Structure formats: structure tokens, C-alpha cells
């Protein structure tokens, strides 16, 4: 009686929270997009498709995704091959350089690239102008091309990770069998290697597309300057305007964005299912055939490292440089440098001080809540036969796949007082959104740990006399502790510098770090924004090192 009750209670609360956080808001969002003046109507959609201010962003989103993904594949596939299959010197360094953009939030990437490629004042432009001796600058970041370039550089790791994994897991005998059958090196690549990694390339591209479509920071900081709107920035501008009609159009645009994202996800699942995956992964001796580059080894290494230095290291260096400048645009001389920006950001300026405290507390609370929720839901999903646990799976996964902008709008519609609960402009609103969006990471990690616990371990505890709660506390939790810690950190890190949702949900007293960096950059205080962004990057590096220690050799895509 007792144990059954605690178990039912725990499950019931978790599922209720999931419903309130995910199913209800998304349902409301969907519903609102079909309502006008209290009446069911397709008016929002017809306005979306008749007004250029609305359908052009949709078209731009698809276009941005398309070109970004092509760029991401052009960068990610050769690099994955170089890391997985060649004897290029320093492959460890190479691999970590390729994963670096994965850790850095795109809006910080955008800020970093602005330092380099802003018209006239960007470092790269200044260098070019002084070298060539002209006054016209060659690069303009504030353009569609600029958006594609930066977005491509921050999404190629999706392609890189997927393709490198496939190339490393592929059974080398498959290629050797083709050699011995009479195929030369290039013929093997054409007939065996490419067909077998193609699904992984496609899958990586799908994920990069999804990431691009969901992104707000890059189109906001780069695109809006050039009056180029995509769905996320158009929704932002409607919500920012704050009127009722705007919210309704934003709802319709959000539903479109959600449909686009889910369609990409379904397509990705379909591609992965079609992959002859099981056959590729071999049982034994996975030592991939390494191509010896011979006399090409150092020339190729030179090109690869030069590219990565320019594409990945240079913008970060630029960001740090600017963060030490007295003012943006000053010549790079000793007299221009100062640490004043950091002092200002950390101790003097109330916006950034509040933002830092806010983000830290939000991340702590959201990570703990998401881990607790994720643990129970993961238990339901992997260790019980309860009907409807597939729905739990879906409700955990879906909000992570849906762009943060959409989740944030759904929260506004559901929890701004229309249903007796008003969280608008509060701390709680941000927590609710973070938990909804990020519980997936905890859920996935803890599920993976739970699956490895053999049922007999729990059965032994029960036979020994432990109730459900005692069993959960004494047996299950200690066994999945690494999964819990990893899950917690994987929620903590992105929430600490979240922007996509925060920008729509923050109130006068609840700015976050992401919001502060964004607003400072948007207002033109580049050197202050750079200092705060540089701090974020430093914190990301340190936490990543800690996570690697904890998670050990486990790799995640």
C-alpha cells in the first residue's frame, strides 16, 4: 500500500508537470493560431501568406537553412574524413578545434564575427584596407552571406560529429573487401565509402538545418541590421511590439516554424532508419583504414589548420581583443587597452550584475528541476510498462526539437494570466520555459544509464525488503549517479547563456546573461558586450572540461 502510493504519487506529479509545461502550452499556441477575435478562423494564416513581412521571413528561413547546411557539409565532411581516416598531424587538436563551435552559443559567435567583419571597423576589414591601401572595406557581415557564413561555422559540428562517427564505426573490412575485389582507392571511396556514410551526412545536415531554423542570435545580431528577417526574428519583433494582433500572427508563424522543425526531425528519423546501420557496425577490430597522405601530409595540414585558425580561432581572438578596448573602433595600440570593461561588467553596471546573478540562479534551479523531472520520467519510460509511456517520451523530446522561440511564445500564451496563473515578467516564467525545453537532456542521459541497470538489481532490492522509494533511493539513484550528474550539467550549461527563449520572456527585473550581451551589442556597446561574452566563453570552457572529466570517454552527438 505505502510503496505503491509513493510510486503513483511520484509518477503522477511528474506527468502532471510535463503536461503543464509542454502539452498545455503547445496546445494553446496551436489553438490561438486558429483564432481571431474569439472566433475560429484561418485569418492569421491568410495574413501570413499574403503579407510579405510574414511570408518573406518564412522563405528566408528556408533559404538560410539551405545555404547554411551546404556550407556546413562542405566544411564538416572533409574535416570528419581528415580526423577519422588520415594520418594528419595533431588529430586530437584538430578534433577539439572542430568541436569548439559546438560549445559556443551562436549569438556570441555572431558578436565575435562582427568584430572581424563589421564594415570599415572590423579587424579583418581594417587589415585589408591598410594592406591594400584603400578606403572601401571588402567584407560586410551585415548581409545574407554574412549570416550564412557565421551560421555555417557554428552548425558544421553537427555534420562533423555524424560523419566522423560513421567513418570510424565503419567496418574496415568492407573497404578492404572492395580492394581485394579489384577496386582502386578512389573506386572504393565511390562504390563503398560514400554510399555507406551518405545517410550520416544527410542526418548531420538535417540537424544543422534544424539548429539554423531555430536560431535567433545570428539572424538578430547580423540579419536585422540588414533588414533581413527570418521566422525567429519576425516572431520576436511581433512579441516585442506587444499588441494583440501581433501575438496572433506570431502564433501562426510559430506553428509554421514548429511544423518545419518537426518535419525535419521526422525526415531525419526516416533517413536513419533507412541506413543499413546494424551491418556497418562491426563486432571486432575497428581500426579504420588510415590513408597515409605521404608528401601531401604537411601541405594538407597547413590548409586545414590555416582554415580553422581563421574560421574558429580568429573570431574568438577578436572578441577578447575588443573586450580589452577602451572603446570599439580604437586603433590596436597599448594605450587603447584596459581591463575596465571587465570591472564594469562584473562590479559596477547593475544590468550585467543582475543578469549574472539571475542566470546563475536560473541555471541552478532549472538544472535541478529538470534533472528531478527527467529522472522520474526516464524511469517511467525505461523501467515500467505503463501505458502511454511513449507519450512521455515524445513530450520530453518534442520541446527540445521545437525552436526556443516557439516554446517561449507558447509559455506567454499559456501562463500570462489568461488561465488564472500569471508568470509574465517573472523568474518562474524563465524556469518553466527552460525546464520544458531542456529536460530532454537530463531525460536522455538518465534513460541511457537506466537501460544499463539490469532488472534483477532492482528485483533483488525488492526481495530484500525495500519499498519502491527505498529501492529508488538506495539502488537506482547511486547506480545512475553519473547519468544524473551529466544530465544536470547538460541542462546547466545551455541555460546559463540561453538567449532564444530569454529574449522573449525576460522582464525588467529578470534580465539574463544572454539578454544582457544581446542588448549591449544591439545598443552598440561592443566593448562591454565583448567583455561579458568573453566571460561566458571562459566559463563554458571550464565547465566543458569538468563535464569531460565526469562523462569520461563517452561521446555524444
Amino acid at each position, binding site marked *: 500500500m505505502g510503496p505503491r502510493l509513493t510510486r503513483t504519487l511520484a509518477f503522477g506529479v511528474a506527468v502532471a508537470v510535463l503536461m503543464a509545461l509542454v502539452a498545455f502550452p503547445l496546445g494553446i499556441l496551436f489553438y490561438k493560431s486558429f483564432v481571431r477575435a474569439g472566433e475560429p478562423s484561418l485569418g492569421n494564416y491568410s495574413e501570413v501568406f499574403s503579407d510579405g513581412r510574414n511570408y518573406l521571413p518564412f522563405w528566408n528561413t528556408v533559404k538560410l537553412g539551405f545555404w547554411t547546411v551546404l556550407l556546413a557539409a562542405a566544411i564538416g565532411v572533409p574535416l570528419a574524413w581528415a580526423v577519422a581516416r588520415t594520418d594528419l598531424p595533431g588529430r586530437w587538436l584538430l578534433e577539439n578545434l572542430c568541436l569548439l563551435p559546438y560549445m559556443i552559443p551562436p549569438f556570441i559567435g555572431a558578436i565575435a564575427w562582427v568584430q572581424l567583419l563589421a564594415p570599415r571597423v572590423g579587424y579583418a576589414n581594417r587589415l585589408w584596407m591598410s594592406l591594400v591601401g584603400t578606403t572601401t572595406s571588402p567584407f560586410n557581415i551585415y548581409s545574407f552571406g554574412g549570416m550564412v557564413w557565421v551560421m555555417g561555422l557554428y552548425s558544421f559540428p553537427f555534420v562533423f560529429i555524424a560523419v566522423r562517427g560513421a567513418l570510424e564505426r565503419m*567496418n574496415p*573490412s*568492407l573497404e*578492404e*573487401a*572492395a*580492394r*581485394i*575485389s*579489384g*577496386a*582502386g*582507392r578512389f*573506386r572504393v571511396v565511390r*562504390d*563503398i565509402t560514400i*554510399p*555507406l556514410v551518405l545517410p550520416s551526412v544527410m542526418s548531420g545536415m538535417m540537424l544543422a538545418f534544424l539548429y539554423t531554423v531555430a536560431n535567433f542570435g545570428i539572424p538578430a545580431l547580423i540579419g536585422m541590421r540588414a533588414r533581413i528577417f527570418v521566422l525567429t526574428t519576425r516572431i520576436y519583433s511581433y512579441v516585442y511590439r506587444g499588441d494583440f494582433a501581433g501575438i496572433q500572427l506570431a502564433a501562426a508563424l510559430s506553428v509554421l516554424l514548429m511544423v518545419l522543425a518537426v518535419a525535419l526531425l521526422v525526415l531525419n528519423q526516416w533517413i536513419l532508419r533507412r541506413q*543499413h546501420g*546494424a*551491418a*556497418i557496425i*562491426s*563486432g*571486432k*577490430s575497428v581500426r579504420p583504414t588510415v590513408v597515409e597522405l605521404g608528401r601531401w601530409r604537411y601541405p594538407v595540414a597547413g590548409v586545414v589548420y590555416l582554415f580553422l585558425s581563421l574560421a574558429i580561432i580568429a573570431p574568438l581572438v577578436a572578441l577578447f581583443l575588443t573586450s580589452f578596448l577602451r572603446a570599439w573602433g580604437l586603433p590596436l595600440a597599448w594605450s587603447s587597452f584596459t581591463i575596465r570593461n571587465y570591472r564594469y561588467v562584473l562590479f559596477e553596471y547593475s544590468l550585467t550584475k543582475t543578469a549574472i546573478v539571475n542566470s546563475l540562479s536560473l541555471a541552478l534551479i532549472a538544472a535541478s528541476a529538470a534533472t528531478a523531472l527527467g529522472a522520474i520520467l526516464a524511469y517511467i519510460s525505461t523501467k515500467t510498462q505503463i501505458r502511454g509511456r511513449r507519450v512521455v517520451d515524445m513530450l520530453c523530446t518534442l520541446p527540445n526539437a521545437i525552436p526556443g522561440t516557439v516554446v517561449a511564445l507558447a509559455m506567454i500564451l499559456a501562463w500570462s494570466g489568461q488561465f488564472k496563473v500569471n508568470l509574465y515578467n517573472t523568474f518562474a516564467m524563465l524556469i518553466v520555459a527552460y525546464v520544458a525545453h531542456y529536460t530532454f537532456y537530463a531525460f536522455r542521459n538518465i534513460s541511457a544509464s537506466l537501460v544499463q541497470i539490469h532488472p534483477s538489481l532492482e528485483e533483488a532490492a525488492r526481495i530484500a525488503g525495500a519499498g519502491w522509494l527505498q529501492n529508488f533511493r538506495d539502488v537506482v539513484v547511486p547506480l545512475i549517479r553519473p547519468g544524473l550528474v551529466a544530465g544536470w550539467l547538460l541542462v546547466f550549461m545551455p541555460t546559463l547563456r540561453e538567449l532564444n527563449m530569454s529574449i522573449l520572456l525576460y522582464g525588467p527585473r529578470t534580465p539574463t546573461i544572454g539578454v544582457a550581451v544581446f542588448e549591449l551589442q544591439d545598443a552598440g556597446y561592443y566593448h562591454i558586450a565583448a567583455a561579458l561574452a568573453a566571460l561566458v566563453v571562459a566559463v563554458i570552457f571550464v565547465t566543458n572540461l569538468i563535464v569531460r572529466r565526469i562523462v569520461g570517454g563517452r561521446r555524444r552527438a
Partner: protein
Amino acid sequence: MAGITLRRVTKQFGDVKAVDGVSLDIADGEIVCFLGPSGCGKTTTLRLIAGFERPTAGEVWIGNKLVSAAKELVPPERRNLGMVFQNYAVWPHMTVFDNVAYPLRLRKVPGAQLRTKVMETIALVGLAGLEKRYPEQLSGGQQQRVALARALVVEPDALLLDEPLSNLDAKLREKMRFEIMDLHRRLRMTLVYVTHDQAEAMVLSDRVVIMNQGKVVQVGSPWEIYREPADPFVADFIGLANFVPAVLVEEAGGEGVAEADTPRRPRFRCVVPSRPGRALPANGILFVRPEEVELLPAGEAEVTGTVTRVTFLGARLDVRVEADGAEWRVEAPAGARVREGDRVGLVTERAIFFDAKGEIDETEGVA
């Protein structure tokens, strides 16, 4: 078809000599098995023949063509070999037909001829009717047959097999062994087979090559390997063995008498032939196969011991006897009346006397 010759082939990975000065002549049409514990260099040797590895020193010849040397390497695709891999390596994105047809397509065989040859080969390995299937729709055994067909379809100069049966279950493995033998009888091609399964090597080979720590330890027919192992390693690796430290007490005309080196007397003793090219050592190890030991009633032999365990194996009994502090393994007929605790006498007709010191020095030299 062609024979294969290895001349002092060495392959070094970093500081490790995976293959160390291996020389061997494989005759045209012969089945040779490389047998040894994991890491002994047998697979590397096969990959050197295939051309996937470049020798650090030495030469590989196929027929009368030099294919591998430190400075000269004919790539695998130009060696006209067939190879079957341990994990099948059947291409998952091609049907059975396309898998088998691939080597012919590379050789630009025209359509009608290609089709006939592919269907013929698929039938040869017993997969007729499955040519439109994808590998994921086949069992492990069927996938291995596809791999075999793909290797055979071009009528290669030699067929290389790298532990081809180790992923199959015991029953199927035995069946496939005989099928490979039948195929060899029909096609008569040179066959080089790598395995760690001694039964497989015994059944299949004309000659067995035993490798250990990168070196060839012994080459011989299965009979020779079993009956006349070159050293304690081979004796121990193939079949079961009793080893007893012993000293030579008599020697005359190519024969001697060795006596177990135990404190109690009378000691276990037996006649040992000297081995070709080697003098009988003064100190050594006496090696006796369990089936060469005979159990007698206590008192009828010089040495008696106590039966500690009797295991019923169907056709035979595995009997453990403790005598003078040593444990003996004896194979007795199933009908023998021995029980645990019985006192029994031990005699043997046949033993080999190894020079313990010399053999140990040799193995240490390798490591």
C-alpha cells in the same frame, strides 16, 4: 592459380614485430592453415599476402611475381586474390547478386557472361534463389556464403580466409568446414586459412603453420604437428599435454631413457627417441599425450598414484591422477573401471623429451 612464397618477411608496428622473419613456400593448390594464439601474427601474415600491409623487410611472391617488398608493393586490387573476412564484410547497400557481381564489374566482364558466372557462383555456395536479398535479410552463415561467392567469382590465384567461421555457431562451423573442403576439392585453388581453432586447422589443412610471437614455430601435416610437436609450446597448444620435469639416465643408439625428476623412488621412467638433428638433453621436460598413458592396477607399474577425478566425456574418460606431487591427465576408454580414490599404476609407451632450457631461452629471445 599460383603458389605463394614468403621470404624472411618481417612486419613491424612501432616497436613490436608482429611478423618476424617468416619464410614459407605454399604450393599451388595446397591448403595451408596459419594457427596460433591471438596476437601471434597470423592475421598480419595473411594481410601481408593480401597486400593490405607493406612488409618492413622480406618479400612476398605470388606465382613467379614479386608482389611485396619493403620498396615494392603491388596494391591488393591488382593481385587477383579472393579474400573472406572474419566479419563477412558483405556490403550492406548491395544485393547478394550485386555483391558477387562487383569483382566482375570491375573487370569489365560483359553483361550476359557476368550474369551466368554470378548465378553459377551463387549456386555453388548454395544460395540460389536469394540473389535479390539484401545482407540484412540473411543469416550470418548465409552472409559468409555471399562473402565466399564474392571471393570465388573471379577464379582467383589464391583464396585467403581470415578466421571465416569464428562468428558462426558450433554446428554451422563444422558444416562449413566440410563445405570449404568440398569446394577446394572441386576448384583446386591455393587456400590460405587463418584460424585460432585447432580442430578447424586439423580438418582442413594439407599443412599447418604454427605461429607464436610473430615467428613460425613449426610447419607440418596435422599428423606431424600432433605427434611430433617441435617444442613444448606446440605440444601444449595442440591437444592436451602432460609435462614432467625429467633427467636423462641412459642413452644408446638414438634412444634414451628419461626419468621423472621427483624425490621419491622408484621414479616414473620411459624410453625417449632422440629427435632428428638434436641430441638428447641431460635435463628436460618429458611430454606425454593423455591417450598415450595407460592405467594399470597398482603394483603392476613402477609408479603408482591416486585417482583424484574422473570425468565422463562420452567416448572416453578424462582421468586425473596424482602421483609424486604431479597431476597427470589420462584418457581412458569409457569402459575402464576407475573411480576417485583408486590407486593406479602409470606407464607410457611414447614420450618426447624436450630440452627445457634451450626452448625457454629461445622464447625469451623473442620476447
